């Protein structure tokens, strides 16, 4: 009797162990699916776009013929746009983070700002486009210009920068703040000379990652009127402009197959820029991680 029972248990045990193994393989395969699609995507983009990628492509303006079209206006437009976005979002974002971490009293208003930032981060980017359309394009009368796009994007990534900067400021050890106050430093002196220098690597890393999100954004810029075809570089804040994702979107939508190769080449350039930005962020993080 007992032996039979034991055998049953053993049998069931074997089943349980085997089931565990099977599902482990299943879980591993599920993980692989995401990775496989990542590889497929890169492979697809590379094979489609590489043929059209050349120095001419990078240095040419858009053209009505696939062979002559280039990403130059988009590339430079994206760079200009990012400069505007960086200036506004980093200054305002870091200032907000310092306010929340160092000055704000623990009260309802501060909580409200925090929750508000959290919620802003979840608003779809296209809604920011509508905000920009109402305020920057029409109400401030900037029209479909670089500054309207830049301000819209700055607001879009502001929550990301605030959160990253908050984390960076928070991670500055209390001991060195104490040391500064103990020397008779005022609050602002302590912030400017001790906290910010120590937090800058973290802030920079966060800012670059936020900007790399902005550089790939398309939807809000469509709403605030980035141009699809443009033959000059923007020469002022109030100039018309285009950016890489808009060019890619425009080419993707054309029916002739050649345009998809042109779009593919554009995606390669865009991904290369993203890779560059993320590498810089990783480098900064690795360089300064050992400190503090």
């Amino acid at each position: 009797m007992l032996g039979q029972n034991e055998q049953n248990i053993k049998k069931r045990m074997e089943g349980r162990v085997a089931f565990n193994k099977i599902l482990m393989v299943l879980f591993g395969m599920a993980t692989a699916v995401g990775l496989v699609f990542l590889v497929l995507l890169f492979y697809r983009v590379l094979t489609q776009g590489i043929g059209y990628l050349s120095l001419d492509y990078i240095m040419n303006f858009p053209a009505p013929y696939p062979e002559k079209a280039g990403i130059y206006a988009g590339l430079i437009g994206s760079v200009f746009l990012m400069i505007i976005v960086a200036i506004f979002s980093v200054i305002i974002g870091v200032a907000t983070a310092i306010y929340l971490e160092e000055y704000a009293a623990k009260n309802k208003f501060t909580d409200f700002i925090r929750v508000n930032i959290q919620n802003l981060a979840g608003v779809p980017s296209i809604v920011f486009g509508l905000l920009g359309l109402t305020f920057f394009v029409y109400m401030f009368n900037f029209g479909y210009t670089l500054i309207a796009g830049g301000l819209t994007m700055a607001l879009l990534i502001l929550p990301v920068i605030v959160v990253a900067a908050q984390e960076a400021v928070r991670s500055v050890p209390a001991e060195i703040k104490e040391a500064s106050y103990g020397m008779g430093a005022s609050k602002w002196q302590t912030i400017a000379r001790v906290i910010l220098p120590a937090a800058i690597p973290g802030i920079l890393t966060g800012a670059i990652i936020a900007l790399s999100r902005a550089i790939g954004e398309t939807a809000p810029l469509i709403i605030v009127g980035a141009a699809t075809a443009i033959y000059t570089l923007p020469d002022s804040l109030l100039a018309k402009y285009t950016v890489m994702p808009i060019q890619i979107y425009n080419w993707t939508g054309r029916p002739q197959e050649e345009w998809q190769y042109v779009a593919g080449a554009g995606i390669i350039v865009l991904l290369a820029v993203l890779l560059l930005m993320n590498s810089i962020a990783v480098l900064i993080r690795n360089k300064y991680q050992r400190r503090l």
Partner: protein
Amino acid sequence: MNKVMEEKTNKNVNQGTKKPEVKKEGIKKENANSIIEVNDLNLWYGSDQALYEVSMDVPEKQVTAIIGPSGCGKSTFLKTLNRMVEMVPIVKTSGSIKYRDQEIFSSKYKEEYLRTKVGMVFQKPNPFPKSVYDNVAYGPRIHGIKKKEILDQIVEKSLKGAAIWDELKDRLHENAYGLSGGQQQRVCIARALAVEPDVILMDEPTSALDPISTAKVEELVQELKEKYSIIIVTHNMQQAARISDKTAFFLNGELIEFADTDDLFQNPHDKRTEDYITGRFG
């Protein structure tokens, strides 16, 4: 001569119900050369009282040790002397602390200014993530001294004062984080010396150091008292006995006994002091 503090009968003094007669019970040394005079100091963290009616005169150019079991309020007391304790927003105080006859709790008295007179060295070495030079020059710079020649002089003098110049004179522009713990702590002392304070508060400055570094810091403290008044909190009674001229014993937020170090250790007047220094608790 020193007097023994009488045991407080009203342990739970509440804010506002301060009894004036308690005032006289504080320990006073009839020494004209006291640099800090504390009278009836009470301190609360929110509704928890951490210091009860502490009165004590800190002598000039001597080493005053503060001992007591952990949680007795000794660090809190130390941080009250340069008002660092107020960085915790819920802290409330009553009573008076006079530095060179000026009330430091007075609204006219700027805490930033007080801290240039009453410097501080912390428990854990806490240099800034900057060069040795920038660490030491920090104090003078924030107080408006910008000339390089002057800063050079100050840095050299302060590092010499902290007995670390010879070790570091060729490494002034290296990051202070690369130094050993003992070196870091002496750089922190040099940083405190750079503004030429009157008083230096030390909050268990050797608790994070190895024995050799500890010996160096203790030696340094002996040298520094020529020019500075030093108040040092320590959990180590031997250290207090070795380096201090006077010792104060705190227990549960009260100053139990304050006397010449030799007296206090050899001939404690209060039973609780005796229990503590003989190792019966703590």
